């Protein structure tokens, strides 16, 4: 438990606690992490051996989704919960296909944000903002967000592998509604999150237990719940599926898809 913080003091950073952003980087094979992150990540792997595979599958889903969106003509991306944007980050994927793509990264982790800022230095079509997904109004009103993105034109909002850190009490559906209300027709929502569909209880509990020791406890959700989060959007084919099944490049890569634990989908705002 942190020391009592006076209400006028801003949050300070604590690298003594594992960070989900840096754990995720570790699963992806990166070295942007500290001993405390690796220890938590290894504990997670002991509980859920396929955790690195989950992260990789989710990252590949993000890549395919961004490629899909770029092909669909989307040139603006709002990546909330972007973490440490190292291998295969959104602006690299999007700008490789469409150099005029604009990307705003949002993360609550101050170290991830500082790191992102360093990586993005010199790329004036991108920016990073430290904010919490649970405060979508603050994200939408942030001057740096408004400076890069034009909300009168379509924007793809990416909420990938982060919604399971938003508790039911923090009303994730309302968070998504708030984001949706700011979007122009033709915008997209990309969602993925950990799901317990067909998962055994012991495995789930153990994974949640590991995340409880980080700043971000885990909230797994069903396929129906995840589908509900797309309220107001038209799901593009194939709907909400295990992430390897979402528009796979080869039939083999979609095998054993449920082992990926993450469900994901892409929705389009009509009108």
């Amino acid at each position, binding site marked *: 438990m942190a020391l009592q913080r006076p209400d*006028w*003091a*801003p*949050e*300070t*950073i604590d*690298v003594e606690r594992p960070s989900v952003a*840096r754990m995720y980087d570790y*699963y*992806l*094979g*990166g*070295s*942007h*992490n*500290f001993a405390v992150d690796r220890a938590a990540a290894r504990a997670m792997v002991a509980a859920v051996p396929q955790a690195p*595979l989950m*992260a*990789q599958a989710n*990252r*590949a889903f993000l*890549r395919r989704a961004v490629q899909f969106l770029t092909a669909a003509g989307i040139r603006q991306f709002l990546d909330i919960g972007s973490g*440490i944007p*190292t*291998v*295969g980050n959104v602006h*690299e*994927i999007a700008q490789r296909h469409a150099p005029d793509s604009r990307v705003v990264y949002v993360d609550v982790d*101050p*170290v*991830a*944000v*500082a*790191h992102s*800022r*360093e990586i993005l230095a010199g790329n004036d079509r991108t920016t990073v903002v430290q904010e919490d997904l649970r405060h979508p109004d603050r994200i939408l009103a942030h001057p740096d967000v408004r400076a890069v993105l034009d909300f009168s034109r379509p924007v793809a909002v990416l909420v990938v592998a982060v919604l399971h850190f938003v508790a039911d009490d923090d009303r994730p559906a309302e968070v998504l509604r708030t984001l949706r209300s700011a979007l122009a027709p033709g915008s997209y929502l990309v969602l993925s999150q950990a799901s317990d569909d067909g998962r055994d209880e012991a495995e789930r509990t153990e994974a949640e237990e590991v995340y409880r020791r980080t700043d971000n406890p885990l909230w797994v959700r069903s396929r129906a719940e995840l589908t509900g989060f797309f309220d107001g959007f038209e799901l593009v084919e194939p709907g909400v599926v295990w992430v390897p099944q979402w528009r796979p*490049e*080869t039939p083999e*890569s979609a095998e054993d898809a449920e082992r990926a634990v993450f469900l994901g989908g892409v929705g389009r705002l009509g009108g």
Partner: protein
Amino acid sequence: MGSGDSVDEPPDTCSSAGAFARAWAKAVAGTSYLPMTDAQLETLLQRLTDLLSEALRAEPLDLRVGHKVADELVNAHIASAEALGRTVEVIQLRLVRDLDLVCDDVEDRMARLLAAVATGYARALRDRTLDEQESIRRAALTARAEAEQALRASEARFRHQATHDPLTDLPNRTLFAERLAAAVGGTAGSGRRVGLCFVDVDRFKRVNDSFGHQIGDRALVAAARRLRRAVEPHLVARLGGDAFVVLVERSTGTGDVVAVAEAALAALSEPVVVDGHDVTVTASVGVVERRVAGTSPDDLMRAAGSTLHWAKTAGGARWALYDAERDGREQARQELSAAIPAGLERGEFFLDYQPLTSLQNGSLLGMEALVRWRHPQLGVLRPDSFIGLAEETGLIVPLGGWVLAEACREAVGWRATSGEPPYVSVNLAVRQVHRPGLVQEVQALLRRTGLPPERLQLEITESTMMTTAEEPVRALRALADLGIRIAIDDFGTGYSNLAYLRDLPVTELKVAGEFVRGLRAPEARADERILASLVSLAHALDLTVTAEGVETGGQAERLRAIGCDAGQGWHFGRPAPADHILARLK
């Protein structure tokens, strides 16, 4: 291109190389996250396969190719221990076979090339790991520095909020108190002087009342801004409401601080336009300036506050300079008035009486109660030293109530040698008459003491009646209906409005001593004529007349001749305890 002895190339090299690249891609897939499509991966590995196969054939064997292949793999994020293991395995097992490479020492060359790949890979991976570690540590340091900076900024903001007024952003009372304490405290130079200007906008409530609080607030903000500019570099604080204070440190004399006060007044008196409204205000300033030695922040603030009050009571739109003598007098008065409640509690007040004597037969008609205060430090005080104060502060109500009750209690025991015992005459202050419940209070008092109503006379002044309110008139009627005598005190000195003689149930006029004094000089006939007309007027209205301030037998004789009913004054007896007066009659 080569000469006649060139190496034969099998026609299916490309497709064989393709098969190998696919096998390689399959081997490394899933070892770590690969930010590319399967097709992109195969294209990359196809190119690396070509590099390797050329290297194996080339003479001499160039190990740098092995390093280059390793670098490319790691840079493409095919960068994990597993990826290296599988890469070594697939090259060793399949490269020569799939590409059908033919040369003399292919095993030896393969071993050396693979060693170069492994070496290069390990080096590239280690470099990358170190770079990434450095980069994330730098990010953590940056984030921590930013968090600390934010904390410091937040502390500064908090400190600012705690020491500044949110409306005007001027320093608040807290900061002002700190700065004043620092200015007055400290040891440097006993000759140092300090000054304060206590600034208050005159009748600011009117601005709020006529324009609303929002505009009032904005006018205050504008006033604060001007004030700050006008008195720079001195500290200006807002104490709350429309009150400001300026601290003049290191003053060289009264002139310095008066100059600041004048600058403040000038700045505040300029009209300010708020939302299209012309808001014009004036201000008052209390100025105090003195040596630091021997004073304290509390003293200074109190002195500045009193001085501001002087400026206000003098009509505002001015400054006033602190005057120790005046302040001393006011403080003494203040202390005296504050001591009245305790004096009442401790029974320090008592009554003397002065006889009201018949001019016709010399009999004692009544006695006027006069309050005295036996002050523990100041001795016996006469009413003129504390009644005024009591009237200002409202303490006249409890004090007057006590006098009335005490007078009734004493009077009920008075006995006359012949005829009716004398009545008791008690002064009622304006506030007492205007208080609701007076009639019930008097009724209850008469009931409690048993004093017959006709033996009580209430003396009111003309000013009591100078009101449009009906309540006092109704109260006096009710009292008169009970049988109580109502006398107008000091008649002839005020407006002497005859209208209320018609409307009010008055039974007696007490004519002020000025007219009586005039009777001493034989040539001053005017006073005598006025008195004579007053008496005939009173008699025509069925009122009796008592002359006050009768000092000589001659005056008494004249008054009797005019037809005046009664007299009061030294000639008939000085104020004394009731039993002394009654004893003299026996």
